[in-house]
């Protein structure tokens, strides 16, 4: 595995993605919407609506908003990964690519990075803005700064990257089996379903999304991601790509 080769593939894919407005819009729009929208909402509830929200409830509310960055990590890379695989299928550019002195693993890793890096950067940037704004809005009511805290650290450093990786691998697997970008994206969008379910379970208190549980979930997810990675290695083999992919 030569990282230089991986990076050539990744930077090329990133260059192509920059031209796709739907992808850049999601990449920039989602984190900003969450980072600005929720603090505005909390600001309204606390200071303008006249409703009295006890500070004990406020923490739970902010936590559940934080979880949206996990959902983002599951949705953002789907469009990118689907495009970077199915796009090549549609343009039939995989064959010349495979004819270069680049291994299957290098191509796969390059494409994975091209979907993963912008996602993680977007989530981190959005979450930073979110934490700053949320602190500003809530510090008076709470009497302390809610962020940074361990939950958010686990979400940003472990859970979100793993979720993004999970979404990328799943998208690659799905993309290898369909032949147009739209159905790849629609199918891959199902990836975010388990995380919505997790969110709901957290909200109704079945699986409280505290630091310990978030770490457990991250650990379990890491195993799933390893499995998916092995599967996508298996799928992304030149012999399969040229003879078995549709």
């Amino acid at each position: 595995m030569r990282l230089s080769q991986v990076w050539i593939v990744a930077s090329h894919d990133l260059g192509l993605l920059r031209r796709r407005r739907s992808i850049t819009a999601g990449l920039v729009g989602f984190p900003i919407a969450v980072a600005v929208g929720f603090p505005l909402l909390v600001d309204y509830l606390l200071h303008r609506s006249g409703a009295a929200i006890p500070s004990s409830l406020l923490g739970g509310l902010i936590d559940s908003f934080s979880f949206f960055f996990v959902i983002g990590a599951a949705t953002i890379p789907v469009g990118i990964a689907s495009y970077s695989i199915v796009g090549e299928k549609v343009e039939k550019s995989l064959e010349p690519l495979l004819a270069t002195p680049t291994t299957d693993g290098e191509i796969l890793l390059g494409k994975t990075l091209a979907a993963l890096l912008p996602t993680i950067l977007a989530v981190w940037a959005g979450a930073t803005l979110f934490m700053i704004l949320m602190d500003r809005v809530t510090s008076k009511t709470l009497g302390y700064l809610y962020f940074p805290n361990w939950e958010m650290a686990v979400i940003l450093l472990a859970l979100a990257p793993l979720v993004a990786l999970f979404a990328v691998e799943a998208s690659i697997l799905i993309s290898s089996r369909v032949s147009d970008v739209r159905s790849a994206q629609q199918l891959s969008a199902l990836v975010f379903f388990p995380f919505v379910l997790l969110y709901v379970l957290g909200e109704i208190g079945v699986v409280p999304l505290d630091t310990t549980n978030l770490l457990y979930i991250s650990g379990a997810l890491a195993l799933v991601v390893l499995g998916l990675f092995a599967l996508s290695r298996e799928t992304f083999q030149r012999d399969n790509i040229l003879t078995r992919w549709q």
Partner: protein
Amino acid sequence: MRPGKCVVRSRPPVGGPRPQALEVLFDPAVLRAGPQMIDAEGLTKTFGDLTAVDRVSLRVREGEVFGLLGPNGAGKTTTVRMLTSLISKSSGSATVAGCEVGNARDELRLRRQIGILPENVGLYEAASAYQNLEYFGRLQGLDAATLRGNIERLLRMMELWEKRDLPVGSYSKGMKQKVAIARALVHDPVLLFLDEPTANLDPEAAKTVRDFILELKRERRTIFLNTHHLDEAERICDRVGILRTRLLRVGSPEQLRAELWGNRTLVRFASVSEPLQAALRDRLAPRHLEWQGRTLLVEVRDAERENPEIAEAVLAAGGKLTELSALAPSLEDVYLKLIHEKEPGA
């Protein structure tokens, strides 16, 4: 030459100084002496129950243009994909540019020495011609200066330099095909595979591409060309192989013609009569005769020796001839004969 190349010998770079003595290049003795660029033995590919390529053995020498001719589904693309290690072979063995096909350790070295124009151009349509070539040059490990130089030389050669920054999606089919050929050449490979380079092109675009291939041939680049255009094969290739799952025959176009189709002599008369036809039937027996109006086609083994005899026979029979000439069958005749005669597996 980069280190670790398994190539046999080097040639001048793309668009570089052309060898002066063209005669030397086409001297059969020189060609025969050249080292093998491709050496395949019993190459076979099966897809489930289907045998796509059956025990193909062939050799291509350095500097040679080899054409693989065959109808759709004959296994041309599959053969090229095996030779370029894009797909695995089911059995057999092959050495390409000194690298062993199917040997994982030789694979990357092999791909550095070959360029391939696949059946589908497979360009990134949103990217410019320059960016397309740049990407592949970088993947081939070229340093920035060499890469820039190669891209400029190739795009100028293809008359695409002025349009280099436009997205490839805005190009015509012929232009795209040229960009794809440039992409195959960007790292200056010793061996070039072209899979049906003029298929789906209008006649004018096909001609530009064909002229370009001839240009590459003059540079003594080794080319493996898949085609179902007989005319193209005949004009470009030093040798052709006729493939229909199995390799039915290999030889130069002239060899194949002579070997498979004795020659014919055409005799045109001022006028034709029943008695003349009867007299010629006697005098020219046992040769096979075919009348087409005032024209007679006589099958001959050796035109040099037999044509004077035919002329004498015509005069003796009282015929007034206006023309007598040796007819060579086209490669097309040979091809159709082979393709229709030999069913695969027969």
